[in-house]
């Protein structure tokens, strides 16, 4: 609704605490009257399978203080979305649809179980089908579809990190036998420069521990969990079938991954499509093997740890990463205020990884910047992570918040390898 000029209140001059303010500085808007509560917008949302709980909110407001987007100035959270829907705003075409990172902090505290983790992909799926998707996200969908990864890198180069980093990593189609641990590398460790560092470090640790493992190499395709949560269900299902077929082909009893998003898909979605493989995060796999690790170098750093949303809140693993950090000689762990269940989102989940441009119009700071500031406040030298989205996000945020040189971002695997002098 356009603003009627009559609703603008503007005085030629006002004096506030001795300071004269001209018209544009004292401009106020008369509040528009609500003439209708059209239920169509809400009904359209709640009629979609998976999105029913959007209508359950009783405005208790508990979600708002824990919504990371709201904390970053994004005027967001399920309570606010409910209220906007009650006013008749069409969520299917509204920017609000794309702000949610599906971090699950709202669901954690919601007494009515308004479940954004189900609501968001359900509504986004409809919008994706209608072509109402932010351009940068659409581009990622297309790249994933064409190349098997969101960066648009060549599928043939998916295992190049092995040679590039000169690590010895068994590849399934070469070894041609089942292994104890099928390592699902996933896109960021396979292609992103800092992801490769972590992947190579993990390979060295696995080799030092004499683990019987293998990777899928060029056969592997993106798990697409974030694309699924961003509404690309079709793409997700196609790739899931592909990966499940590989698990079956290689008789994988246990799949291990560095990526909590892949873990989430494979643990909760793949079984619905027939997968029988058990899936664990690499920290969960390594924590019981601490006694076998031979640490030869003390790392005298103060560190803090960021719980990935999809490892912690979504999949309940809070202890394994901490056990590993505490096992490394020299490291001193100081927790951030928002840790474990309360962990603050890095901004990368639910499609947020590919929406930084879009989000910059809606928030005052990146979520990763908010988090980096909190990490710096602990006095840590290193922000320890164990999700491949985070290294790149937090390193960017370290730079953009002016903390370069003060804070390093490292994967647990890198610290393990360093301390084991691998």
């Amino acid at each position, binding site marked *: 609704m356009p603003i009627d000029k009559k609703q603008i209140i503007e005085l030629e001059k006002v004096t506030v605490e001795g300071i004269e303010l001209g018209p544009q500085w004292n401009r106020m808007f008369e*509040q*528009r*009257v*609500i*003439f*209708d*509560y059209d*239920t169509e917008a*809400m*009904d359209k949302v*709640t009629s979609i399978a998976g999105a*029913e*709980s959007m*209508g*359950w909110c*009783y*405005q208790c407001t508990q979600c708002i203080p824990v919504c990371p987007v709201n904390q970053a100035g994004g005027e967001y959270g399920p309570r606010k979305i409910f*209220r906007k829907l*009650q*006013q008749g705003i069409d969520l299917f075409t509204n920017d609000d649809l794309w702000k949610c990172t599906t971090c699950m902090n709202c669901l954690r505290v919601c007494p*009515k179980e308004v479940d954004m983790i189900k609501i968001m992909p359900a509504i986004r799926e409809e919008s994706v089908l209608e072509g109402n998707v932010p351009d940068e996200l659409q581009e990622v969908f297309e790249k994933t579809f064409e190349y098997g990864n969101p960066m648009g890198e060549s599928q043939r180069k998916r295992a190049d990190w092995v040679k590039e980093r000169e690590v010895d990593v068994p590849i399934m189609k070469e070894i041609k036998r089942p292994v104890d641990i099928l390592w699902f590398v996933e896109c960021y460790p396979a292609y992103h420069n800092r992801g490769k560092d972590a992947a190579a470090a993990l390979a060295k640790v696995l080799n030092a521990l004499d683990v019987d493992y293998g990777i899928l190499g060029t056969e592997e395709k993106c798990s697409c969990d974030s694309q699924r949560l961003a509404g690309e269900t079709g793409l997700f299902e196609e790739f899931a079938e592909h990966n499940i077929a590989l698990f079956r082909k290689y008789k994988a009893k246990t799949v291990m991954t560095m990526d909590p998003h892949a873990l989430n898909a494979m643990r909760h979605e793949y079984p619905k499509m027939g997968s029988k493989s058990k899936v664990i995060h690499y920290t969960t796999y390594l924590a019981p093997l601490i006694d076998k690790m031979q640490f030869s170098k003390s790392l005298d750093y103060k560190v803090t740890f960021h719980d990935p949303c999809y490892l912690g809140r979504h999949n309940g693993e809070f202890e394994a990463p901490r056990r590993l950090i505490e096992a490394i000689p020299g490291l001193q762990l100081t927790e951030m205020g928002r840790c474990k269940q309360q962990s603050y989102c890095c901004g990368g989940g639910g499609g947020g990884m590919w929406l930084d441009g879009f989000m910059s119009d809606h928030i005052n700071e990146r979520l990763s910047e908010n988090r980096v500031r909190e990490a710096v406040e602990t006095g840590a030298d290193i922000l320890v992570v164990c999700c491949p989205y985070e290294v790149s996000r937090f390193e960017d945020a370290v730079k953009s918040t002016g903390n370069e040189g003060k804070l390093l971002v490292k994967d647990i695997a890198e610290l393990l390898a360093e301390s084991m002098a691998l």
Partner: protein
Amino acid sequence: MANENVLIIGGGAAGIEAAKGISGLGFKAILVEKRDRLGGTPDEEKYAALTPDLRDTQEALGDLMAPIKDNPLVDIHYNTLVTGASGELGNFTIKALQLGKEIEFQVGAVIIATGFKHFDPGRETQKYSYYELDDVITLTDAEKMLSEHKFVRPSNGEEPKRLCFIQCVGSRDRRLGNEYCSKVCCGISSKQSIEIKKLLPDCKIYIFYIDMRMYGYWENEIYWPAQEKYKVNYIKGMATEIVKKGDKVLVKGEDTTLRRPMEVEMDMVILAVGMEPSEGTQQMAEIFGLNKNKYGFIETTGGCLDTVSTNVPGVYAVGATTGPADLEDSVSTGGLAAMKALSAIRSLAVTA
């Protein structure tokens, strides 16, 4: 020697339960009722279904009163008004008028179960236009329609497409002298929303409220289903006035969470009227010399730990005679008073 009969004044849910308790323990209950039938306000005002379980009112009341009908230990006196009382615990003489004829009862204790009346929104003429606009009705008017399984706009007999409830009419109001919360209206509005939605699935229903006050299981048994299953829209902010606009009514208020004024057209408005002490309750307080609180309800003496004893030993007040009460409260206090009345009489016998 103490008289062991107990007089119960008022044949609503609380009085019936008290009579059940007295007779069930093997003593004589004398139940006087001013109307020619039992059932109290739910029956008189033709409630459709009880809150929170949505059970048919007549069926539920029928089950409640079955044990005292044709029970040799329960004397029911219809069309009877109590007019005077004298005596004390163990020995009261009660005067009454039965169809113009004076009668007398000798009893050991008295249970007053004369209930409440609904707030008359006509007292708020300039706000809610209850007597001016046909399509502005009360919860009780709505109950009558719902009990006939027909829900239409009184102005034209058509089914409403949009209607709203306005909560706290006549309650929580210092100017009206009713500062208390009437306790049941939030639940009843939500219950009626469900009933209306069952009859008219396409009708849009809004509830304008200050606070939704859902006690205990009413939250999950009425409020949540109303919102989640029946898609009733709860909007925080109580409407201030209702004016005619064409063949509709315009509800004016403020949406407090948006901090914006609102003027919304409705086909019908249902005023969630609260409870006040009934005339019978006020008269009984006078006749028995009972303390009343500032709102005219009978005051009990034991605070939250004795909800039925009054300042007169041997006289007990139950149900909505002491303040807003739901049916759960009414039957609970009815049964409690039966036990307390008999134990008071019996302890006299022991000490004598």
